[in-house]
């Protein structure tokens, strides 16, 4: 993979080549496609019924309809976005194809950009049917959130990419021994991101930690919109600023891990 910096420009042709590679893979394997659909559908059905049950028995939730199911959908955007990014990367390690890519003219930034596109494609395959299920089964239309949904979506996607870039760097450096991090790291921030409950539930000292995470702002913003019918622009802007810092930091970490991998000579033997 050429160079480690952004110099000499980015080639859309090379990014397109990598997207084509992942598209061929996805289309050649029905279990991979099914996996994209299966879990989001299961999530929305389970949590939809939970929400339905709680709404019947608690006046607050009856009033604040959709907070749980909305949270589930937004959480899946965050989780599936990262997974779509990282799994595409791990596919190269599974295929023992990394060295082929690393010594081709493909630049690290082009590689990562192709993974972001794949993250969106894989996410669309899983999330669009999920939202339609929520609409048909539970009469929850997430698209009715309107323009705020765009702000929620991009903030969550940026966080998922930042985590995805960092995790991919860890797999690059440590091989498939680090694969479990791909599946579990996002869950580590789950309690602090306050997906299903307001941040005020956390102890005060932990709230400071939670506010470092952009998803916390998104889920607080979603509750403000669904319960108080207020769109908190301030929360979205802070989340965006933190996301930009996280994206830069994770890209820097990826380059450092790539350099370390080359120093330790493990690219040709990447695997377990």
């Amino acid at each position, binding site marked *: 993979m050429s160079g480690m910096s952004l110099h000499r420009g980015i080639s859309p042709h090379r990014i397109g080549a990598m997207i084509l590679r992942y598209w061929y893979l996805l289309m050649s*394997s029905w279990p991979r496609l099914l996996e994209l659909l299966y879990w989001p559908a299961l999530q929305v059905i389970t949590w939809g019924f939970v929400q339905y049950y709680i709404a019947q028995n608690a006046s607050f939730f009856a009033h604040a309809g959709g907070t749980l199911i909305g949270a589930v959908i937004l959480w899946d955007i965050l989780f599936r976005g990262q997974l779509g990014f990282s799994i595409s990367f791990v596919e190269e390690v599974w295929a023992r194809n990394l*060295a082929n890519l690393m010594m081709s003219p493909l630049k690290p930034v082009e590689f990562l950009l192709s993974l972001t596109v794949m993250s969106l494609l894989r996410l669309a395959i899983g999330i669009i049917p999920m939202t339609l299920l929520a609409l048909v089964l539970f009469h929850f239309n997430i698209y009715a959130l309107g323009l705020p949904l765009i702000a929620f979506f991009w903030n969550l996607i940026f966080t998922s990419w930042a985590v995805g870039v960092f995790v991919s760097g860890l797999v690059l450096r440590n091989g498939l021994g680090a694969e479990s991090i791909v599946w579990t790291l996002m869950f580590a921030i789950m309690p602090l991101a306050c997906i299903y409950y307001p941040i005020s539930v956390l102890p005060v000292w932990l709230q400071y930690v939670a506010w470092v995470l952009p998803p916390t702002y998104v889920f607080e913003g979603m509750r403000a919109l669904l319960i108080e019918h207020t769109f908190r622009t301030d929360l979205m802007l802070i989340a965006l600023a933190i996301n930009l810092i996280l994206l830069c930091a994770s890209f820097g970490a990826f380059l450092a891990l790539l350099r370390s991998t080359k*120093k330790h000579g493990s690219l*040709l033997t990447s695997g377990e």
Partner: protein
Amino acid sequence: MARMIGNDGVYRGPVAGRSASGAIEVERVIKVYKQTRALDRISFSLPRGSITGLLGGNGAGKTTTIALIMGLVLPTSGRVHVLGHRIPEESASVLGRMNFESPYVDMPMRLTVRQNLTVFGRLYGVKNLAGRIAELAEDLDLTDFLDRANGKLSAGQKTRVALAKALINRPELLLLDEPTASLDPDTADWVRGHLERYRKDNNATILLASHNMLEVERLCDRVIIMKHGRIEDDDTPDAIMARYNRTTLEEVFLDVARSRVNGVKEVVR
């Protein structure tokens, strides 16, 4: 004494230190992995249009040397220039002009041969890609299984596909790590013939690491013998065999591996 090592530990054989405009220039490169010195001040220069064999036992440093030239491994010290550009700093200028094949690296198994060649052709910015794939398919006898998944091919077919990928961009520099490993003698001979023609038709430079001495004797106009990360010898196959008073490179290889000179165990250097 077979080795021609200077006081500074650097090989000073008859073909070392050729002109700076060579295809590959490796200068006093040291590579240390934790406690292991994988390469110990190796220096060599390969002229354009040459085929050079890199010989040595397991752990001699052949794969590390090739990985350094590709920029997949960073040297601890020393300098590497490829096609006139410093590696890895200027690798963006040369990676499109070189390619490689290695048994340590696979191509995606679920993709068909055509899909794999399409992806790599696009990565290398190959013009008239469909035509180039058809040309390679004919040259390397891939036509019958172009639309079969790579994972469903025999070892020999996979090697030919990997070779097609390595040639997709008509590289000026081709790095091959055991290019005929796991091939039957007939296919291996056929691959060697193809490499010879490719070098001749394109004035390409080829560096190949191999354990197959007959292959090196047939293909290479120069041999670099490595042992424990150092260059033990560097010359034409004939000159090396004459120096060791041997008739085959295999006998030379065994002498080097067992530290013998002219069949006698070397005691003092």
